[in-house]
C-alpha cells in the first residue's frame, strides 16, 4: 500500500502546491518494515522498501504496525486519527531534524493520510 504513495500524493494538485518548497527524504517505519520516502518540490518521487544498511534521512517516523493500521483505517478511532494523537500517546516516535517535519506539518499529515482506506476499497473488501 505504501508503494502507492506517489500516485496518491502527486494526484492532489493542492497538496503538491503546498509542498512546493519541500525537498527531503524521510524514513517511515511500520513496525519492523522501513521505507525511505523522497520528496522533491512537493512530489513524492521514490518510495524504497528496506531493510537498509545506512539509510540517510532528515527525520524518521516510527510506530508499531497496528498503530499505523488504525491511523490508516477509514474512520480512525479517537487517539488514532492524527499523527499528533499518536505522538501524544507516545506510540509514534518522531526523531531527527524535526524542523523539516514541523515546518511542513500539514503536508506530512495530509500526505500520510492519503494511505487511509477509501470507501471504494472498503466496499470491494466487504
Amino acid at each position: 500500500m505504501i508503494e502507492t504513495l506517489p500516485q496518491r500524493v502527486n494526484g492532489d494538485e493542492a497538496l503538491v502546491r503546498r509542498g512546493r518548497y519541500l525537498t527531503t527524504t524521510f524514513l517511515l517505519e511500520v513496525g519492523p518494515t522501513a521505507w525511505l520516502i523522497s520528496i522533491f518540490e512537493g512530489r513524492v518521487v521514490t518510495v524504497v522498501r528496506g531493510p537498509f544498511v545506512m539509510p540517510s534521512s532528515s527525520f524518521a517516523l516510527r510506530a508499531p504496525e497496528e498503530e499505523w493500521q488504525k491511523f490508516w483505517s477509514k474512520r480512525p478511532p479517537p487517539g488514532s486519527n492524527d499523527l499528533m494523537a499518536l505522538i501524544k500517546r507516545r506510540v509514534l516516535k518522531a526523531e531527527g531534524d524535526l524542523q523539516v517535519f514541523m515546518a511542513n506539518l500539514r503536508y506530512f499529515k495530509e500526505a500520510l493520510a492519503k494511505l487511509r482506506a477509501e470507501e471504494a476499497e472498503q466496499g470491494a473488501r466487504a
Partner: protein
Amino acid sequence: MSARFEPIIGRYMHLDLFGRQHRVYVEQAGEGTPLLCLHTAGADGRQYRALMNDERITQRHRVVAFDMPWHGKSSPPAGWHNEEYRLTSAQYTTMILEIMAALELDRPIVIGCSIGGRIALHLALEHPERFRAIIGLQAGAHVDPYYDLDFLHRADVHGGEVAAAIVSGLVGPDAPDSERWETLWHYMQGGPGVFKGDLYFYKLDGDIRDRVARIDTRRCPLFLLSGEYDYSCTPEETLGVAKSVPGSEATIMKGLGHFPMSENPAEFLKYLLPVLEKIGRQDRP
C-alpha cells in the same frame, strides 16, 4: 443576492489590566442572563459565532465574547515588541473579573474551552460566588506537553501554519468542512508566539490537579462537556475532574473534538441547550 447582517455587535473597550492600558475587542448578541464565552489558546472570540447567531440562545441570554489581549482584534499592550508573551493563571483570572466588572455582567454563566475550560475550573474554585454556573468545555486539570513548544515560535517555521497543523487533528471527524477550516483559520491568524504563550498557562502554570477536588458545586454548579476525539484534553481527563468534584456533571460528546462550539455548532448545541435550560431552571427556584 442581498447582503445580510448577523445580530452580533462588536466594540473596542479600553481598560486597565495588570497596571497597563489595554484595548480589548468585545462582541455581544442577545438579551437576558449574561453568558460569558472564553476562547481557546491561540484563537479568538469568533469561535462563539454560532452561539451568538442562534436564537434559541440569544432569546434568553446576553452572549458576550472578548478577544484576550494579543488575540483576534485585541491589541497587545504598548511595549509588547520587546516582550515574550506568557499567560499566567493570575493574569487570566484578573482579566476575566475586570472585563466582567467593566461590562457590568452580574453573576454570568461562564463557558470556556480548553484554556478557557481550565480557567473555568480555577474560577469555580476561587470565585464561585461571582458566577451563576460554570461550563467547562474540554476542561482538564492538567495536560503534559507532548511536543516541543519552541516549534510554535521560531523564524524557520511559519507560526500560523504550524499552529493550525498542530491542532487540525483535534477537530472531530464529523465537523463540516466550512466550520473545520474556519476554526483552523483563526489559528493561522494568531500573532507570533501567542499560541505558545497561552500554552504556558495550559501546560505549566495552570496545573490545578492538587486543588481541583476542593471545588464546591453547592456554591456554583459545574458542567463539563468534552469531545470524544480530543487528544489534548481527553475524555478520560474530563471524567477524572468530574470524579473528583462531587456534584459536577460531565458529558462526553460523540464525534466532536477540541473546539465543539466552533468546529460543529449544530451538534454541540444539542449538548449545550439542555445545560442552559437546566441552569435557567435552577436560577428560578
